[in-house]
Structure formats: C-alpha cells, structure tokens
C-alpha cells in the first residue's frame, strides 16, 4: 500500500490546544463568519450583483426553510435520508472493522489483499450508479449499496492502519502472559485500533451522507436528495436552496455527533485525555 497517497491518519483532535479560551473566541469568530457569509449572500442578491432568479436573498431562503420545516413531507424525506445513511453506515462499519481486524492481524491476508484493495478503493462509488439502478431501481437499497461501498473503504483502510500501529511492546506483553487470540483481539488489538476506527467512522459518516444524497438526487431514491431534484426541476429555486441548507445542517450534525463519539470512546487516548483536575 505504498504507491497511492495515504488516506488521512487519525487527526489529533483540538483537545491539546488550550481549550476554554479557544472555544469561546473560536465560537464567536465562527458565528461572525456565518453571519458575514449570509449577509454577503443577501447583498449579492438584493443588489442584483447576482441574478436573484438564480440566487434568492438569504432571508427568503431561510424563510422558506422555516416553512419547509413545518411540512410533514420534509420530515418524511429527512427520515428516509437518515435511515438510508444510518443503515449503510452501520453495515460499512461492521464490514470494515471485522475485515480490517482479520486482514490486519494475518500477515498473509494483508499481503494477499493489498493490491486488490488498492485497486478497488479509488473507484468512485458514483461509477456504480448504473449497476445499482439495474439491480435495485429506485428502491432505498440502491442508495444503501452505494453508501456501503463508499464508506466501507474509509473504515477498512483506517482499521488496517490501526492494527498495524499496535505497540510491539504491548503485543509482547500480551503474548508473554499467554493471552488467547480472542483476548488479544479484544483487549489489545481493538483498543489500539480504536482511534483509527473512530477516525474511519467520522470519515465514513461524511462520505455516507454524500452518497446517500447523490443516490437520491441522481437515481430518485426517496429522501432529501430527491426533494432537491424535484424542487429544482419544478423551478422552485428558493426551496432548492432551502433544502440544500437543510442537507448541510444534517451534515454538520453528523460531524458534531461523530466528534462527540470520538471524545467519549477515546478518553484515555493522548489526543483526548487531560490530566486530572
């Protein structure tokens, strides 16, 4: 696995930097940034620097979003999207973790699969759209298949790195106390690889959402993506933007949730832990 660019390694989360002041000023600056972007969009449209037919004023978009949130259809679509995303992600996590641990722990399997993985991983999942349409049409299964395909690589590759990153001294310790293979997997390999698993989860969660929306938009699988397509083709420009923002907010929520999971699971990890008191 040397030829291609390495995927992102587990990033050290922001925890090592001074925390309280950063989040305060960071929060304020971030909020100002959002406000600035909205104001700019508003002005671009109001001053007709950009044709308002293509970019309605931000205030109108948000008003429309508010209206959409009051409609049952929006929530149905949101639920469909989240369901497809979650099922696909869960399957990808299961496959990625199990395959990663097994392949990573057996040197022969690792060498045996390395080239295959390197070949399959760069295939963009959207290239599989014709195939899944042929197989499943516009059923949710189409989207789930794409999500699983795309997200599994993220998890698998991270888990492979994680298993390779186990401290040899920890491994020797386990061996010298004659831990069984199962106990080594549970008490040494799994916790060592966990930071990578969590990173894989975070990357996979984002990719899964992209693929879910893509499938809905392109194939017509029910969900927010299809709603966007419908709004766009019926000329409801403001609604299209509003739905896009809704999807963006969903993406934000996914990322925040993944970060929270990371912090919880890795409380002992150098990137997260703080001294007592």
């Amino acid at each position, binding site marked *: 696995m040397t030829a291609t660019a390495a995927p992102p390694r587990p990033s050290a989360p922001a925890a090592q930097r001074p925390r309280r002041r950063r989040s305060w000023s960071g929060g304020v600056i971030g909020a100002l940034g959002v406000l600035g972007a909205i104001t700019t969009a508003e002005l671009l449209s109001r001053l007709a620097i950009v044709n308002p037919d293509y970019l309605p004023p931000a205030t109108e978009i948000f008003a429309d979003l508010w209206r959409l949130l009051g409609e049952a259809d929006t929530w149905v679509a949101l639920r469909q999207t989240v369901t497809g995303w979650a099922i696909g992600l869960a399957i990808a996590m299961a496959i990625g973790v199990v395959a990663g641990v097994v392949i990573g722990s057996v040197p022969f399997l690792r060498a045996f699969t390395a080239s295959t993985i390197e070949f399959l991983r760069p295939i963009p999942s959207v290239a599989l759209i014709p195939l899944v349409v042929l197989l499943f049409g516009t059923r949710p299964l189409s989207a789930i298949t794409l999500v699983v395909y795309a997200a599994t690589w993220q998890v698998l590759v991270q888990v492979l790195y994680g298993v390779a990153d186990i401290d040899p001294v920890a491994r020797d310790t386990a061996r010298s106390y004659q831990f069984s293979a199962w*106990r080594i997997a549970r008490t040494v390999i799994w916790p060592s690889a966990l930071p990578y698993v969590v990173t894989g989860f975070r990357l996979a969660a984002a990719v899964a959402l992209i693929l879910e929306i893509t499938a809905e938009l392109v194939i017509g699988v029910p969900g927010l993506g299809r709603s966007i397509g419908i709004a766009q083709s019926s000329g409801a420009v403001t609604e299209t933007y509003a739905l896009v923002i809704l999807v963006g907010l969903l993406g934000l929520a996914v990322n925040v949730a993944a970060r929270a999971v990371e912090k919880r699971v890795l409380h002992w990890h150098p990137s997260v832990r703080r001294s007592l008191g």
Partner: protein
Amino acid sequence: MPMKTARLADEATETATLTAETKAALDVRSVQKTYEGQGRTVEAIRELTFEVGPGQLVCIVGPSGAGKTTLLRCMAGLLELSGGEVVLDGRPVTGPPDGMAVVFQEYGRSLFPWMTVRQNIELPLKEKGLGKAARREAVDAALAAVGLLESADAHPWQLSGGMQQRVAIARAVAYEPSVLLMDEPFAAVDAQTRAELEDLVRSLWKRLGVTVIFVTHDIDEAVYLGERVLVLSNRPTVLLEDVAVDLPPERDQLSTRSAPRFGELRGHVYELVQAAKLGQRPGGDVEEP
C-alpha cells in the same frame, strides 16, 4: 565446547536428555541472535551458554547495547533464535512458556493505557482463570507490596514513570510466575524506592521460590540482589564472567552494602564492566567494536 557435542547426542536420545536436564530451571545453550533487517544485519549475541538453577536469582550486567534485552526476549520466547536453544524445565522454548512473567524495559508501553492500574494487573490473572475474589486479593496484595494501593483506579498515564514501573512489577508479581524476567525494572524510580523494591524482589524471591533473571545497569544493585552476576561483553555478546556472589543470604541495605566482601565483589564486577566497555573479550583479547 563440550556443549556442542552434548547437543548432538541429545538429538539421538531426546527422552534421556529431558530427564537429565531437569536440574537447571533455565538452560541457555549456545544461543546466538543476529537481527536481520532491510540491508542491515546486527549480530547481537555471538554465543551464550549458561544455566540457571531452579529458584536462583541471577543478575545480568553489561554495557549498553550489549544485548541484554535481546537475551531476555530470547529466553521469554518472544524472539526467534539464530542458533542454539533455550530450555526451560527440560522443554525447549519455542514461544512464551507457561508460568513466566516479564517486566519489560519499556514499562510504560507495556501497560495498557485504556485500562486502569487494577485492570492491567488483573488481566493476566483472568487469563490464568482465577476467580473474581482471588483476583481482587492478588491485585491488592501486589499493589500494597509496591506501595500503590491508592492508585488502583488511576490510568497508567496519570502516574509518574517510577509509579508505572512499579505497576509493571506488581503485575508480574501478582501473576506468581515460576520464572520472572526483569529488564532494568528500577531504572525510573528514586533511590529510596529503589532500595525498597530491591528488598521486595529479594523477599518475594525467597517466599515464592521463583527463579529470577534480573538485568540491570547498576553494579551495586546486581551484587546486592544476585546469587550470581553474569557479566556480558560488548556486542557481539559473549559471557565475560560468571561471578558467584558469596554474600550471606540475609541481606540488608546497610550492613550488606558496607561489608568488605560486598566492596570486593562490586570492585571486581565494576572492573569487568569497564573492561567490557573497552572491548575486552574472554581470554584477554581486545576486539574493536
């Protein structure tokens, strides 16, 4: 080399040797170890042969990089030998053997950071099949022995280096091994704690009758603790001298260390280690490292 011929004879009459060799707990027979890396080979151990009787306490000293850790890992069945064999209780060591505990030089990395101190010590006991109550008792006793009872629920990374080292020792002690290998286990503790731990090792050794191999840089410590001190040469390593420590078995930090015989032995080992550093090999020849 009487060992070599003995080994050839072995192969013919395997069963005969099994009974004949049970006198020594640990039998290191012409062990050789050469590390082969990508384009780099390091001959760490050229040839080492010695025996350790059951229940003996043997210290190993030698210059840094001499191959002490390598030797220990070979004895623990964690490294493949390039030649020779290690025999434990009559059985050749091919993987980590039963009833052996190792305190690694990299004590910090040998503790699992995702577990508390108690869980770290408990885990090998679980693997051994001890019940919950027995485990709790063993962990408490081991922690009390190293003076870390209050830290039972801390994570290793919340402790100082010396405390981590004591946790690693407690884990090995709680395991009640029949052979205990320790690789510079007191390197990170202060002098006072060190003296206490030395006495702890000696009392445990006496109480449990465990065979102990103790690697150290500290010549005083080697003489104070050991019944024998093996002095290793520079790399590629051979045995420079096997020094018998003929001090009385009852040892005491003050009186033993001030005894004239202790001074003589220490002086002797010191000279040997100095000579080893300068490249002295057995037989008097000096080899450039």
